[in-house]
């Protein structure tokens, strides 16, 4: 294979940084088209990169030409290529959605484009970084951008939610940073590749403390039960495109990092935490679903659904000996990413049309907004894990991995979680199917909004037919 003219790995970071800066210079609310153009290019880059990785090309980039451990290395394997792909493909439809969503004078949209650019750049940088300290900087980039997006132009509730979120994310990255400081103290390096042979089965006690700090910091940022308290107000209170970005992508970034360390430098230490994380994951599934079933507001319901769905990601940790477990995690990240983006986008349309953010206000929505409700239903199918959606494949893989290792309890949790998801999804759908009450009016909503929500939701279902490619990408050995 010829050396590509453009190194997709580096440009996936530079491009969003560039359009974010430019959008800031252009001024509040400007830069939508720029972002969309940038994201189109990024999608192409991410596909290109995934193809290279699938073909077995090792993609490593030594920033500054120094190489680890003196410099910082960027490295891409199947896992990171998949996450990059997910990020770009979810962000593009959401950008199109957001451009119609925010009116020119909307204060909530004032900083949207630059903040989103920094957010995506931060995530892309996180997925490719092979340096623990550099990962800390990217974590902060992602966290602060996300907080800014939640708070932008909001009222007291949003600002309070943003503060809660800010403290959670800062404590999380603080714990992570202390963990990294300890690791540097023990080994004298923060490069993942250099650490890999150094961290053996006989590690000093300090590495255990460091690992515990890193994992607890990251599960706080991933909103794993019982650290989920910040998520529902933040994701439920932000404008719909922001909620979609945060729920679909941002929480996955810190989860990815746990997975990366688990499979990489800390593989001899972290598996000790496997069942603890799975237990919290199971608790998240039940607690999140239960709260979603009781929620009054529509977006609250969807946010609690995120709490529940994140639980599945953590069920895989005791199972990682089987390759199906990693595949399940990535499939679930894709399934939830696409479906949740679609669902929040649909909720945004419903809220704009009905003028209220309540589940009870949806009577008649199927009749008036069929495309949007269809999108909601398709997302719901993925979240419930019904076939042929990608959510089903994720659950199938978890169950197979669990059965192969004889862990029946995980099978039961997965299946029960699917049923609970059905309860809260159909809570919304059945109201939508009611005849329209006479005194209710629906405000007309832009078709761009409806169809971009639909595209995301449909993609979450159709991805269920392309599972083989994703698994090939994950299995690629570079």
């Amino acid at each position: 294979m010829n050396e590509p003219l453009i190194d997709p790995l580096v440009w996936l970071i530079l491009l969003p940084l560039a359009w974010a800066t430019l959008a800031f210079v252009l001024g509040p609310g400007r830069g939508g088209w720029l972002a969309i153009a940038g994201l189109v290019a990024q999608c192409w880059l991410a596909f290109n990169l995934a193809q290279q990785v699938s073909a077995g090309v090792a993609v490593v980039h030594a920033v500054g030409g120094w190489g680890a451990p003196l410099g910082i290395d960027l490295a891409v394997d199947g896992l990171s290529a998949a996450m990059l792909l997910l990020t770009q493909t979810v962000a593009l439809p959401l950008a199109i959605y957001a451009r119609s969503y925010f009116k020119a004078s909307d204060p909530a949209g004032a900083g949207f484009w630059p903040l989103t650019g920094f957010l995506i750049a931060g995530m892309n940088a996180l997925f490719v970084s092979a340096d623990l300290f550099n990962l800390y900087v990217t974590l902060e980039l992602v966290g602060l951008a996300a907080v800014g997006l939640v708070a932008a132009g909001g009222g007291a509730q949003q600002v309070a939610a943003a503060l809660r979120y800010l403290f959670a994310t800062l404590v999380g990255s603080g714990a992570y940073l202390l963990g990294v400081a300890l690791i540097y103290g023990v080994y004298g390096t923060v490069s993942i590749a250099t650490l890999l042979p150094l961290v053996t089965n006989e590690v000093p006690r300090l590495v255990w403390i460091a690992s515990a700090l890193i994992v607890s910091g990251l599960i706080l940022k991933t909103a794993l039960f019982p650290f989920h308290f910040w998520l529902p107000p933040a994701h439920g209170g932000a404008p719909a495109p922001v909620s979609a970005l945060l729920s679909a992508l941002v929480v996955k970034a810190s989860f990815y990092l746990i997975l990366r360390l688990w499979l990489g430098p800390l593989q001899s230490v972290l598996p000790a935490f496997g069942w603890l994380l799975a237990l919290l994951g199971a608790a998240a599934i039940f607690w999140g679903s239960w709260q979603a079933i009781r929620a009054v507001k529509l977006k609250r319901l969807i946010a609690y659904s995120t709490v529940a769905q994140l639980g599945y990601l953590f069920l895989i940790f005791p199972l990682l000996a089987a390759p199906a477990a990693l595949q399940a995690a990535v499939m679930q990240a894709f399934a939830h990413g696409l479906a949740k983006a679609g669902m929040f986008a649909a909720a945004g349309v419903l809220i704009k049309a009905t003028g209220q953010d309540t589940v009870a206000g949806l009577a008649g929505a199927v009749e008036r907004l069929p495309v949007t409700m269809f999108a909601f239903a398709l997302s719901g199918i993925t979240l419930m894990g019904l076939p042929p959606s990608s959510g089903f494949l994720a659950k199938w893989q978890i169950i197979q991995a669990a059965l192969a290792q004889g862990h029946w309890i995980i099978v039961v949790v997965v299946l029960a979680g699917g049923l609970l998801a059905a309860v809260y999804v159909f809570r919304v759908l059945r109201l939508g199917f009611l005849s329209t009450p006479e005194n209710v009016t629906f405000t007309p909503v832009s078709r761009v909004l409806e169809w971009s929500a639909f595209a995301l939701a449909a993609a979450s279902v159709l991805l269920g037919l392309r599972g083989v490619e994703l698994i090939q990408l994950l299995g690629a050995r570079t």
Partner: protein
Amino acid sequence: MTSYELVPLAVLASSLLPGLIIFALPDGWVGVRTSLNVFAAIGKLGLVALLLDGVAAGENYGVRYAVLPGLELSLQADALGMLFITLSAVLWLFTTLYAIGYLEDKPRRSRFFGFFNLCVTATMGISMAANLFTFFVFYELLTLSTFPLVVHRGTDKAMKGGTIYLAYTLLGGTALLTGIVWLHHLLGHTEFAHAGIAAALGPEYAGQLKIIFLLLITGLGVKTAMVPLHGWLPQAMVAPAPVSALLHAVAVVKAGAFGIVRIVYEVYGVEFAQSLELLLPLAIFASVTIVWGSLRALFQDDLKKRLAFSTVSQVSYIVLGVALFGPIGTIGGLVHLVHQGIMKITLFFCAGNYAETLGIHKVSEMDGAGRRMPLTTLAFSIGALGMMGAPLTAGAVSKAWLIDGALAASMDWAVWVLWTSSLLNAAYFLPILWRAWFRPVPVAWPEEHIPRHGWRETAWLLLLPPLVTAAATLAAGTLSDSDVTPLAWAKLIAEREYVGRSVP
């Protein structure tokens, strides 16, 4: 892609694509929607005929697609599947015609026909599924696409019925999925095969296989409406008449029964199932359902509810036939799958006609209906007599085979179950017929919507479908020995399932 792969896909596409297009049509475009519906139904019938011809000649129509390594969506037209697919395709055409007449000038028709088409697509997929995973995919699609039809009216009552329907079917689906994953884990695949695949596992797996069987049958038993999993069926009666007709006669309950047939014959293998002692409990389960359904039907005044409990009872005839070890019982069960479909759809069409034309919803309102609507009542009578197993009807044929099957399997008690059920059938159908034909016409009908025009007692699109299916009921009963009947096809299947045994 060869034509052997294309035809099964085309069978799916012939209702999926029209369904998707119809969703996008405005409600007012009656002409476009109607022609699309009718042409799709006729086109599908043509495709099914092509398949039927090919399968009879032993050709191999099938297509596979891997969604994960080791997990394939696989469609295959085999003799058993063709029985169900032909039934569905034929009845779909008539139900479509009926639904066009029934929904005239009512709101949300595009949505209705869209989901209606999805529902049929799911049924086609269920028929052609070549492994349990594919079966499950379409089984759940069926659940999802029938929910909007059940709640179509958008009332609180409809919503309650729909919610109960969902609760039952999703729980059942989860049980089914558990069984499938477990089996897939043990075997590494779930492909259907004559004489089954489960026997390949050693005797040490007998315990696990029994639990899996229970899970699978529980999952399928929900849609089959076997007692005590039948609670949704009477509640789902809030749906419009064409939906009830489709749900009860073809799609939903039959999907469950058909699944049980697949499980017993092609996953476990009937011999292996017998050796695991699974068939007797299944037969008892079915018998209880048969008697209980009939008993409950006796006390329903709501016409559609009475028919619903009758369905509960009749569908389990199929399961009973399957559970009677031996080819004769198999033939009885399979042929009843078709016959019950034709008869029950006739009854539901007629019930819909009474409600649409005269506003009759209850048995107690049926007085004199036969004089006002003689043709509908004639069709209803044929269907009802068929259900009782009266001579010359399709019901007589299937009951005769089932009784012979029970005797051949030395399960004499099953004969008593069948006779009891027949008596109860008579007890709840004959009063209706008596009221309709022999009681005087009331002063006013509850709510007369459609006035009489000469011989046309109601809209012709409502009248034609029940008359055709009633005629088919008689034809299947009188011509049962010819080569082109469901009975002949059921014999062909039984031959293939009981390899090496003589089939009468």
